[in-house]
């Protein structure tokens, strides 16, 4: 969103005629190094997230922080599969819940307590990843609507299994161990573990997007048959993305259940969870790296805050649905891609006007060459 502010300034400057070109120049030169600005922004964001629990020490704020970071991890992981490959999964709660139940059962059976429970997280991710293999092998044979519906079916099978199996404690649920952290800083260990998982999830998305593997995924999204014709082995590629995504989702689910301290089937396998993840992914921009992060950082605290305002949370549901519709209709590709398009079109208009006036009055680099990396930088 920060990138659109200079754009608005630029537009205002551009419309007031040649006298305002000086202002345009300063904005342009500031945007001339988008990579540097991006890196600085990233450092500031990471520092802000890192210091957040030290500045805001009250339990509600850090509680919001933990859950939000868990969602950052999950939405980025979901996007890594669904956003890149175009296979929309509405069943990621299966992996989330698998990780969660694994943690509760394993911690109990193997007598893990306090901080040692965190060592179970990678294992929980692994279990979710293993579960994803057969599910993926079946579901990835079909496309589009049918794929979505199969993932929904998986979700309901998992919920039903959790309510009826002995190992999950049935509908009466299970309780994970409660760590003996001091009340005033209880949330902090969870916060930093969540931050690690979120960072890993985002870093993985970034690496994949820049890699050959990411290119193959996007080729599948654009036209699977053509991609296969060009030599992309579609099934292994799609399945690997799903398994990676399930791994992170499983870890996040395990952390979440340890944090909230209870596991019930309706709660661990929650249809609203799937919807929230998809909404956050769409809100920021599907298939981008920064978009899902933005979506989770904006929407999850909003939802938590709305739930605080009203204990039953029905207003949050209505508002969420309404917001979803607004995003879909007015920002069909998400905030970041639509914003980037907007920015590029404004830049192009200014460049056209300037060349019509016979060259720029102030010596600035070619505007046309800057617009491309800046727009690409938001991806």
């Amino acid at each position, binding site marked *: 969103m920060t990138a659109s502010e200079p754009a608005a300034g630029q537009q205002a400057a551009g419309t007031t005629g040649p006298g305002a070109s000086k202002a345009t120049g300063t904005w342009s030169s500031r945007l001339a190094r988008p990579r540097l600005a991006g890196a600085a922004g990233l450092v500031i964001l990471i520092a802000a997230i890192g210091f957040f629990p030290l500045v805001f020490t009250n339990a509600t704020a850090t509680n919001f922080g933990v859950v939000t970071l868990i969602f950052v991890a999950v939405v980025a992981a979901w996007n890594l599969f669904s956003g890149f490959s175009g296979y929309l999964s509405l069943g990621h709660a299966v992996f989330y819940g698998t990780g969660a139940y694994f943690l509760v059962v394993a911690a109990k059976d193997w007598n893990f307590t306090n901080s040692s429970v965190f060592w179970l997280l990678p294992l929980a991710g692994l279990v979710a990843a293993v579960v994803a293999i057969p599910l993926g092998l079946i579901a990835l*044979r079909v*496309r589009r609507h049918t794929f979505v519906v*199969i993932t*929904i*079916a998986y979700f309901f099978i998992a919920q*039903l299994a959790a309510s009826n199996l002995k190992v999950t404690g049935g509908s009466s649920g299970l309780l994970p161990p409660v760590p003996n952290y001091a009340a005033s800083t209880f949330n902090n260990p969870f916060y930093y573990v969540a931050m690690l998982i979120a960072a890993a999830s985002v870093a993985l998305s970034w690496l994949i997007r820049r890699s050959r593997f990411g290119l193959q995924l996007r080729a599948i999204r654009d036209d699977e048959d053509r991609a296969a014709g060009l030599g992309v082995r579609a099934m292994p590629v799609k399945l690997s993305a799903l398994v990676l995504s399930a791994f992170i989702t499983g870890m996040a689910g395990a952390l979440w259940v340890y944090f909230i301290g209870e596991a019930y089937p309706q709660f661990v396998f929650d249809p609203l969870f799937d919807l929230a993840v998809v909404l956050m992914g769409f809100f920021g921009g599907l298939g981008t790296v920064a978009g899902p992060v933005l979506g989770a950082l904006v929407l999850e605290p909003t939802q938590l805050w709305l739930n605080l305002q009203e204990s039953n949370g029905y207003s949050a549901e209505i508002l969420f*649905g309404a917001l*979803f519709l607004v995003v879909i*209709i007015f920002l069909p590709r998400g905030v970041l891609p639509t914003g980037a398009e907007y920015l590029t079109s404004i830049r192009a208009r200014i460049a056209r006007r300037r060349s019509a006036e016979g060259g720029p009055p102030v010596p600035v680099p070619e505007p046309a060459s800057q617009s491309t990396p800046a727009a690409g930088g938001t991806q």
Partner: protein
Amino acid sequence: MGSEIGQAIAAGILGGGVYALMAAGLTLVFGVLDIINVAQGILVVLGAYLSYTISQHLHLDPLVGLVITVPGMFLLGLVIYWLFIRPLRGAERTSMTLLACFAVALIIEGVLYRVYGSGYVSITAWFTSSSIHILDFYLADSYLIGFGLAAVAMALLYLMLYRTTFGRAVRATMQNQSAARLIGIDVTRVSAVTFGIGTAVTAVGGMVYGAISGGFTPNSGYDLISRLLAIVILAGMGSIGGALVTAVLMTTAEALVDIWQPDWSVAVFYAALVIILTIRPAGLFGRRAVRAQ
């Protein structure tokens, strides 16, 4: 045991008729508009609540109440289509429309919670507490009335599709949208009315569901939509006759499993879905392969 099985089969077939009607709306909308209306489940629940309100507060027979709820739901369908489905175009339309329907479902669910709370309610009428005795087993009147209503609605749907000019336009749009547009069919109008009809059947489906389900909450929409989607996908998308047969098969199978495994009977739907799609990705009655869509 024998009579138990007979009873289960009878209940399965009668209940299947109702699911067939709800699934027919879903599959019709899919065939014409190429979207999955995931709000269908909550719309059925909305229909059930409307019938509940009419019988509870206006003291009307829920059957008579359909005269109000069916046109009401039709209009609601038109509004949803016009506001949220029609503006969505482009390459990502498939996923966008699905999510738009999900958002609509969320809003309706939230509103239902606000208005009616989260407690179970059920529709009571002259046919909901009596049953008749045929041969060896008892059949609840509500199942018979529900099946009868569903059969009438399906027959009307069939007549509309195959005996009217509008139905011809609908079928043409299902086959090839661009060609339909070229020969002068107003595809937008056909789509809007189809979406309206797909929504209107939920008024009937909801009334019957409310009477036979033994209680529902705003949360029942999730259970309903997952069953309906399983039926529609299993039948093969866009196949109305297939949806009918599949609905009856599935509810009967569920009722049979329910005799010895009541906890797992719901899983029949999803297990069948997963198993059959691994063998036959196009579904049981699908004409075009799902993979090639």
